[in-house]
């Protein structure tokens, strides 16, 4: 069935004007329309936080649950009802602080969830405390002298948990966002999409280098599987291998030519180079960084049930009783 974004829209979003969540929501509506799964076969499940309000603006089934538990709740919904397309939406606090355990285990189990991580590197709803993705030294209401801890790098956490899909987009970049959302849907298994999103009130400018088109032209690289990793306003830069890592070079300088530029391989099972790409500070890697096929938990659960059904001779409660040692009192 052909849908338009309006088929997935509901209500009037209440985020602050200029919040990155508005941009992302519009992209999600469009992506869902393009994907074409019926709204009634779709569930959007969030935790708590500014971005977790999102399900209220979806014309699908949804839950706006409790802080940190979105991935756990989504896990149960998907395993119990594998026909449902499940989107799990969390912010960086919801997903990586209080919900960190569920985030890694959903990845490890490889449950077929589309996991959205809206990363603004701040706690917005509680009015401005540092989050687990805030950089070291970050000054906030709860860290007036700067934080003394290192942040998580979401891709590193995902890969460390043996995640098979990781993609990144900037909230204001609709085509880039829609592209990774569609790729996340197509990928069978846990698909993590990190959305770089600005909080205009408490952390304005955190993603400035890539937040507008001009910035992205200079400071971001759009990765495409099977294509050379070139970037810059005139593709004058490229990603090359150096030792055990990667680096950005200007073609024609220091003897580098286009022939040295690496071809992106999102399908490579070994995530070493994908991690290097995800962790680059310049340029910021956007697009699908890792997309590797693996058995999904929900499929395996269903398959195992079918397998055991075929093996065992009891299939209802009355037959189950008969498998025990029974005696008769006359």
């Amino acid at each position: 069935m052909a849908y338009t974004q309006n088929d997935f829209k509901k209500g009037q979003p209440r985020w602050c004007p200029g919040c990155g969540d508005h941009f992302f929501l519009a992209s999600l509506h469009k992506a869902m329309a393009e994907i074409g799964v019926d709204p009634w076969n779709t569930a959007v499940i969030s935790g708590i936080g500014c971005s977790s309000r999102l399900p209220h603006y979806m014309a699908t089934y949804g839950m706006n649950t409790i802080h940190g538990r979105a991935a756990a709740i989504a896990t149960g919904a998907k395993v119990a009802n594998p026909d449902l397309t499940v989107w799990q939406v969390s912010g960086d606090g919801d997903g990586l602080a209080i919900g960190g355990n569920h985030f890694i285990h959903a990845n490890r189990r490889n449950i077929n969830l589309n996991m959205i991580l809206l990363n603004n590197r701040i706690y917005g709803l509680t009015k401005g405390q540092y989050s687990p993705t805030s950089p070291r030294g970050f000054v906030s209401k709860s860290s007036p002298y700067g934080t003394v801890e290192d942040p998580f790098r979401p891709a590193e956490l995902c890969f460390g948990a043996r995640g098979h899909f990781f993609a990144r987009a900037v909230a204001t970049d609709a085509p880039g966002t829609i592209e990774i959302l569609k790729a996340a849907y197509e990928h069978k298994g846990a698909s993590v999409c990190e959305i770089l999103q600005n909080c205009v009130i408490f952390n304005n400018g955190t993603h400035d280098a890539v937040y507008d088109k001009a910035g992205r032209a200079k400071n971001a690289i759009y990765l495409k599987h099977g294509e050379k990793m070139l970037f810059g306003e005139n593709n004058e830069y490229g990603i090359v291998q150096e030792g055990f890592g990667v680096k950005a070079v200007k073609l024609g300088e220091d003897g580098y030519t286009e022939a040295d530029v690496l071809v992106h391989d999102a399908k490579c099972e070994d995530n070493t180079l994908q991690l290097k790409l995800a962790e680059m500070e310049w340029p910021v890697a956007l697009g699908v960084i890792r997309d590797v096929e693996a058995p999904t938990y929900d499929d395996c659960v269903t398959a195992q049930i079918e397998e055991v059904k075929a093996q065992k001779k009891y299939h209802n409660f009355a037959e189950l009783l008969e498998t025990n040692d029974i005696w008769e009192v006359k």
Partner: protein
Amino acid sequence: MEIKEKESVVVRFSGDSGDGMQLAGNIFSTVSATVGNSISTFPDYPADIRAPQGSLTGVSGFQVHIGAGKVFTPGDQCDVLVAMNAAALKTQYKFAKPDAAIIIDTDSFGPKDLEKAQFKTEDYLGEMSIDPDRVIACPLTTMVKDCLADSGMDVKSMMKCRNMFALGLVCWLFDRDLNVAFNFLKEKFAKKPGIAEANIKVIQAGYDYGHNTHSSVANVYRIETKNKVPGRYMDITGNKATAYGFIAAAEKAGLKLYLGSYPITPATDVLHELSKHKSLGVTTVQCEDEISGCASALGASFAGALAVTSTSGPGICLKSEAMNLAVIMELPLVVLDVQRGGPATGLPTKSEQTDLLQALFGRNGESPMPVIAASSPTDCFDAAYAACKIALEHMTPVILMTDAYVANGSGAFKLPNLADYPAINPPYVPEEMKGTWTPYMRAENGTRYWAVPGRQGFEHILGGLEKDDKTGAISTNPENHDLMTRKRQAKIDAIQVPDLEVLGDKDDAELLIVGFGGTFGHLHAAMDEMRAAGKKVAQAHFKFINPLPKNTAEVLKKYPKVVVAEQNMGQLAGWLRMKVDGFVPCQFNQVKGQPFVVAELVENFTQLMNK
């Protein structure tokens, strides 16, 4: 030989963890149940997983109470104690009655065995002041080896049959028909007929040994069967019965059963049991933590399954936020709390009733949840079924409480016929409401409708934020919050539960004994003893704790004295005082991690009556 006719007898099998005491005990209870005796069993495992062989901490026991009429507990103390080694005698003798018969394997009382069991001399009987006349001392290991000499088995395999010799001896003592035991073994070892044959041979040898050598020494007991209820039976533990109750309810409701769980003593056997039954379509997810166990179950409930999460007290602490979410989202969910000793890690393998107030109140906000407590191992089945029915039909999380004693104990379970159980009809939103339905519209009994994803036209959002009664949108309107709070409470209050039943001298009792959950058997046995001694006593036992039965106040106020006896510091008593105006009961509270001792109850209650 003297033949003692007895109303009931308690036998305790004890030995090393590896001695097969649980199997011997199980077969003996099955053999007894087959002739129609009533049975109640309780396994007593060591806390250590693999304690050194022959050590005091490695002793495992299995107590079975068999009776002519109904028995309600595994018994305070045993009439027959089987001690397979010195450590077993040392640690288990305290469970024996002063005139108990004691069966020991003298081959396991060598100098090293005695040293491991911390005996100081070789006169172990003297050290423990045990009258040798009460002891059936037999070189059990030697006889098992002799018996199996021609079998071609190695010594290690032969030693595994020692428990069967003890079983044979006990069967002789109770004049039991060995054929039932033989059939049990033939079925158990259907794929290994050699092992079945060896075990059968050893049982027979044990029986013959008793018959030939000890007929002059010991008593032979006869437990005649009275009030047999004909039917087909199996032995079942509380945890297994709980799992079966969930399976039965899911089948009756036509729903997939989903269990989200995290291993925790003493609830883990429910996860084990349900994980086995994939051929019934049961889905079990062993989650990353207790939180996820409950949260994933709630997700499964939203998606249309009968969702269950199983745990013990420490797990309830972690699950309470998702339980609370289930309260405000009004989704069905069954939370099983197999209570153990607390607080914190407490006494993980021991039994208490200390989570009642946590179950009733342990959540932020006004968060009413139905609470049901199973009264015996077999009652776990009915209690689990009732919990599922209430959860599904009233769109609410329900706490099902059992405890370590009920969960690990077992009883003879008359095979239920699912056709006899009430239907389970969740309030699915009627198709004709499409277009006008909002998520918090309620049926006549105050229950929210269930719109399971996949139905076109019923897309909606639920969540942890307060919602508008009419539109289902987020609302902070003060009047609306007050209204929704009252509606959630009224929905629980409206749940129909059976009236409280009064047992014993219901018309003229001078003392009413009140309890809840797993203490039913002990309190009932105490009442029976007191009535046999001429006292006027009645018993009322709570299975449905929230909401309370309608006749609660009437029953509690009818008798001149009421004692609320519980394995906590007075949690049920406090709840009843809160719900019944002017009710001030006497209390009996014990928090030892052990089942009540009937004799202690009788003594205390009798004193109470004489005051």
